[in-house]
C-alpha cells in the first residue's frame, strides 16, 4: 500500500484473512448417510474422542488434511472504489466473497466493513417457481436485504427495468428463461447499499440486457458506491473496476490497477496455453472419471492464433482422454464473442456423430460453418457429455478461439431452442 488512507475513506479493510477447511478423505462426499456414519463412527470413535480431549474440530475420514482456501489475504477498498477480484477456478475468489458476505466465518484474520453492505452471489436467490413475479420481487428483495418500504418505493422501477409488466401476476415457472433472469437481475440492480459485492452475475441474460446491466453497474460505481466485483469476464472487470487483485492458491498474487493485473493474469494463462495446458479453463462441476478434454486446437494453430476468412469453415480439433469405455457421447462446441456471449452452439449429434469408444486417446475433428460472423475475436468452449446426461464429463470454457478476418455483414438471426445469437446448423463431423 503506497499510502495509508484516512480511516473514514476506507470502506472495507481486510487483514490477514484466512479460511481453512478440514478435509477428511474417504468416498469423497460431504453429505454421507446416517448409516455410513454409524459404521464409520465405530472406527473413528477412538480418534474422535482424542480430538475432543485436545479441543480440536472433529473430522471424519481416513486421512485428514487442513486445506486453506484463503490465507493471509489483506487489502483495502476505499469508499467509491470498484475492486475487481480475478483468478482461476479454485483460487479462492468464491471463498473470499462468502467470507465478506458473512455466509461463512473466517478461520483467522479480520475484515472491517464500514457501511450498509449487500452481496449478490447469485441473481434470483430464493426465487420460488410457484410464486408470481410480484411476489418474487418482494421475496427476493427481502432476501437481498431491502426493507419492505424500499421494495415498495422501487417496485415500479424494477418492473420497468425487467420489462415484465404483463406477467407480474403469473407464476415465474411460466416465465421464459430470459424473463426470469431479467426479473432476477432487476431486483438486484435496484439494491442501493453503500457497499456491493457481486459475483459473476454479469454473465446472464441476452446481450442487450447484459449491456443494460453493465450500464446500471457503472451508474452504481459513479454514485460513489463501493463495489467488489468477481468475474471471469476480464474485459468487464477492466471496464468497471479501478483496481484489481489476483488470487492464486488462496493468496493475493498481485494487486494494482485493474488493467495491469488483468493483463498479467491473461499473460500467465496464455503461456500455460502455449504449453498445451488447458486445465485452467476447466469447468469445476463435471462428472469426473469418464472423459477428459486434453487438448483443443483451431485450424491447426495454437489457440487464439488462427485467422478464419469469411466463407471459410472453422476447423476445430479436440483430443479426448477416455478413461472408461463410453457410448453415445456428444461433443459440443460453443463459439463466443468477446463479451462471452454464446454466438452459436454446435453438437456432434447434429451430424449423427457419437463418441462410442474404448479407453485411450480419441480425436474428434469438426468443421463449423462457414459462420456468418462479423470480423473480430472469438472464443470457444468445448464440452463432452453423455446423451441425455445432465452433467458433462468435461468442459473447458472460453478458450481463446480464432480471429474472424475480412469485412462482411453479419446475418443476425434468432433461434429459440439453441443458445446463441447466430443461427448455424451446417457442420460436418467425423
Amino acid at each position, binding site marked *: 500500500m503506497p499510502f495509508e488512507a484516512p480511516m473514514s475513506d476506507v470502506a472495507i479493510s481486510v487483514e490477514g484473512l484466512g479460511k481453512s477447511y478440514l478435509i477428511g478423505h474417504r468416498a469423497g462426499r460431504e453429505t454421507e448417510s446416517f448409516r455410513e456414519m454409524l459404521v464409520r463412527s465405530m472406527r473413528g470413535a477412538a480418534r474422535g474422542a482424542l480430538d475432543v480431549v485436545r479441543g480440536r474440530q472433529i473430522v471424519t475420514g481416513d486421512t485428514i488434511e487442513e486445506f486453506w482456501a484463503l490465507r493471509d489475504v489483506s487489502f483495502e477498498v476505499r469508499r467509491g472504489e470498484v475492486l475487481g477480484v480475478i483468478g482461476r477456478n479454485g483460487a479462492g475468489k468464491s471463498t473470499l466473497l462468502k467470507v465478506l458476505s*458473512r455466509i461463512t466465518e473466517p478461520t483467522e484474520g479480520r475484515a472491517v466493513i464500514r457501511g450498509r453492505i449487500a452481496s449478490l452471489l447469485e441473481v434470483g436467490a430464493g426465487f420460488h417457481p410457484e410464486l408470481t413475479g410480484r411476489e418474487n420481487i418482494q421475496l427476493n428483495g427481502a432476501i437481498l436485504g431491502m426493507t419492505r418500504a424500499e421494495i415498495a418505493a422501487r417496485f415500479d422501477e424494477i418492473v420497468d427495468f425487467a420489462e415484465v409488466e404483463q406477467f407480474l401476476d403469473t407464476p415465474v415457472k411460466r416465465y421464459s428463461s430470459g424473463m426470469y433472469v431479467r426479473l432476477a437481475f432487476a431486483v438486484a440492480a435496484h439494491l442501493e447499499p453503500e457497499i456491493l459485492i457481486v459475483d459473476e452475475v454479469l454473465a446472464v441474460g441476452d446481450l442487450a440486457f447484459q449491456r443494460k446491466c453493465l450500464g446500471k453497474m457503472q451508474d452504481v460505481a459513479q454514485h460513489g458506491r463501493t463495489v467488489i466485483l468477481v468475474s471471469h469476464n476480464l474485459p468487464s472487470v477492466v471496464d468497471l473496476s479501478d483496481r484489481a487483485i489476483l488470487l492464486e492458491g488462496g493468496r493475493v498474487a498481485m494487486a494494482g490497477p485493474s488493467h495491469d493485473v488483468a493483463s498479467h493474469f491473461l499473460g500467465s494463462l496464455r503461456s500455460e496455453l502455449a504449453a498445451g495446458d488447458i486445465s485452467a479453463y476447466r469447468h469445476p462441476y463435471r462428472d469426473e472419471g469418464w472423459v477428459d478434454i486434453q487438448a483443443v486446437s483451431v485450424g491447426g494453430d495454437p489457440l487464439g492464433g488462427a485467422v478464419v476468412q469469411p466463407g471459410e469453415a472453422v476447423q476445430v480439433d479436440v483430443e479426448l482422454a477416455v478413461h472408461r469405455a463410453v457410448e453415445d457421447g456428444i461433443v459440443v462446441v460453443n463459439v463466443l464473442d468477446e463479451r462471452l456471449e454464446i454466438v452459436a452452439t454446435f453438437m456432434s449429434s447434429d451430424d449423427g456423430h457419437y463418441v462410442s469408444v474404448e479407453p485411450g486417446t480419441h480425436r474428434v475433428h469438426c468443421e463449423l460453418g462457414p459462420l456468418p460472423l462479423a470480423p473480430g475475436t472469438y472464443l470457444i468452449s468445448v464440452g463432452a457429455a453423455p446423451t441425455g446426461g445432465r452433467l458433462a464429463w468435461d468442459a473447458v470454457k472460453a478458450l481463446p478461439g480464432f480471429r474472424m478476418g475480412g469485412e462482411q455483414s453479419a446475418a443476425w438471426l434468432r433461434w429459440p431452442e439453441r443458445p446463441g445469437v447466430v443461427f448455424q446448423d451446417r457442420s460436418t463431423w467425423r
Partner: protein
Amino acid sequence: MSEVILEPGRVDRNYWLDLWRYRELFQVLAWRDVAIRYKQTAIGVAWAVIRPVLTVLIFTIVFGRIAKLPSHGVPYPLLVFAGMLPWTFFATALSDAANSLVSNANLIGKVYFPRLIVPVATVVAAFVDFFISLAVMAVVMAWYRFAPDWRVVFLPLFALVAVLASLGPGLWITAVNVRYRDFRYVIPFLVQFGLYVSPVGFSSSVIPAQWRLIYALNPMVGVIDGFRWCLLGAAIDWRELAISLTVVAISLWIGLAQFRKLEKTFADVL
C-alpha cells in the same frame, strides 16, 4: 454508520441482536412458506380440513366404540379432536422445521441471514393449518352444542407450548440433517410413534395413576391435557403439566445449543 467486523467467533457474540435485525426477512419467509403451502396442493385448504376430520373419525371408532375407552361425559369425537389439534400442529411443525434447511440449501450458500429464522418461519406456516383445524373444531363443538367456558382464554398459551415443544427437536434434527441427510427418516417414525404414545385417541386418565408422572415426560401429554382443559373443561394434573413444561424447556435449550453449534458449518456443507 454501520460497521461490521468479521472475525472468528464474532457471530456468536451478536447472535440475538442479529436475529432481531432480520425480523423483516423472517416475516417474509414465513409468508412465503404459507403462500407456497396453499399454492402447491391442488385441494389446498380442503386438505387441512379433511385430514383431521378423517383421523378423528377413525380414532373415535377404534378407541371410543371398539375399545370403549372412557371420555368422562364429553362426546368422544370432541375428546379426540381436542387432542388432534395440538398433535397435528406439533407433527407438521416438527417435520417442516426438520427439513427446512435442506430445502433452503440454495439460499444458505448464497445469502447471509441468521439461519435460525428458516426453521422458525416454517413453524409459523404450520400455524395456518392449525387455525383451519381450530375452525373445524368450533363447528364440531357447535354441532354437539358444547360451549367452552372461561378457560378457553388460556388456549393461546398452550398453543405456544406446542410451538416450543416442536421447535426443540425440530432445530436439533434440522441441524443434524444438514450433515447426515438420511436423518430426516427419523421424523415420520417419530411422528407415527408419538401419535400412539401421546393421549390423542384417548384421555390420559386411562393411564394407571402410578405411571402418570412418568407419562408426562412426553411433553405433548401436558399440551394435549391443557387443550382439553381449555376447550372441554377436562381435569388436569398440574404436576404433570409442570413436568411436561420442564421437558419442553430442556429440549428447546438442547435444540438451540445444537443448532448454534452446527450452524456455522451449514454454508460449507450444504
